[in-house]
């Protein structure tokens, strides 16, 4: 099993519904977020290209946050989902420094928090909150090792990229371009 997400930058309209859905589902404290929408403008007026991306933890295959965690609080769960065990986290900030995507933050209660791919929903066979709520259905979540899953098929048929592949972390969020 290898959970991954394919996010269509051509369909995303930047409504930030995924952000609100995540904050509600995961009780994210006010002022923080586990996912966010960024807009990249390339070129100069009038010839500009805009890309909208819903970004979050990339649940990397070689996650530097798991490697540098001194207490094993950051670890891999089934399907390669990277999760933080709250009662093991000492809040040293090493994982925050190690993440090339700046996907982690220090929760006001002390431990480090980030996207969990809504592992509590995935275990029940549901979609992560952001994917479930997206009005343009641009977030596709599933198992890459299942040849019939929607993610596998979408990545077979579309051009995609990952963010900062040169960081060597093998990110598992794929952006359809």
């Amino acid at each position: 099993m290898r959970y991954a997400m394919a996010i269509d930058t051509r369909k995303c309209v930047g409504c930030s519904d995924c952000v609100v859905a995540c904050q509600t589902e995961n009780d994210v404290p006010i002022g923080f977020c586990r996912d966010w929408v960024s807009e990249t403008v390339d070129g100069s007026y009038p010839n500009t290209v805009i890309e909208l991306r819903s970004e979050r933890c990339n649940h990397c295959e070689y996650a530097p946050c798991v490697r540098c965690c001194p207490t094993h609080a950051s670890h891999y769960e089934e399907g390669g989902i990277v999760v933080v065990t709250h009662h093991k986290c000492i809040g040293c900030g090493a994982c925050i420094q190690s993440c090339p995507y700046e996907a982690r933050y220090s929760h006001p209660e002390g431990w480090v928090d980030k996207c969990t791919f809504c592992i509590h929903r995935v275990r029940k066979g549901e979609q992560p909150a952001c994917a479930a709520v997206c009005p343009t259905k641009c977030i596709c979540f599933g198992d890459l090792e299942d040849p019939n899953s929607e993610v596998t098929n979408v990545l077979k048929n579309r051009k995609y990229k990952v963010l900062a592949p040169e960081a060597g972390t093998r990110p598992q969020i794929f952006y359809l371009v």
Partner: protein
Amino acid sequence: MKEELFVSGRNIPDIDPFLNIWHWQIPLYLFLGGLAAGILFFAGLFTLLGKDKEMPATVKWATLITPLALILGLFFLFLDLKHKSYFWQLYTTMRFESPMSWGAWVLLAITPLSMVWVGSYMKEMFPGWSWKLALLDRFEAWTIRYRFYLAWVIVVLSVVLGIYTGILLSAFNARPLWNNSILGPLFLVSGMSTGAAVIILMSKSHYEKTIMSRIDLLLIVIEIFFIFHMIMGFRAGSAVQIAAANLFVGGPFTINFWVFVVLLGLLFPALLETLELRGFRVPAVVPAILILMGGFMFRFIMVEAGQITRYLY
């Protein structure tokens, strides 16, 4: 031209607009750790060389402050933790992939060893000293007998501790300024140099001061070489590394780095020490204090600047 903005209005404290999760506690801890490593290294080294009689400040007096420096450093490290009541989790796990983990274990070993070292010299330093407990007296006699072996352990562990202060930062691939293999040796040399400065400050013998000044001079030359080597390596590197080097070459840290670290913290004290060795009368306090300030500024700037550097996409 590429411009990025957060459509969803992300503004997380200590993360946006740029990372600043480690504050003054970390550089202060790195400074104290490097300083203690430097002093302990010289104490162990001169014991192994059989020069402990000629170098009383190196082997005895300066080591008095190492347990304090290490405990204070550990305290600052503790202050930096955001989930403080769970700090003991550090000592329920051992992970060699994580510098934070093995560093914590090295500190757990070297802090009591530094106390044992100081304890073995207490009666020599303070003739009226009494342990008041027969058990401690016996332990002291035992440590004095095996001091030579203790010196070996201390030399090895102090080098590990000194290098660790650099590797703690260089292990982060996501921070291009830190992610270079010269940072470990650079922090080790810088820590030894600050340790030598403390010894020079505490030494009363001209012979000892001269030896330590010569060593310090060599360390400063190596340090300057490492710094240039590091910046050259960045300039010849990838886009993120060039951006990292540019923080020091024309960027916002240029003046702080070249004036406070290189000029006042390395070149000027090196000049003063050279003059002193040539027979000019220079108060030894001045270069020593400058080296200590330079060492702290170096760590402060590296921690601060490193957090700004990141992958661009």
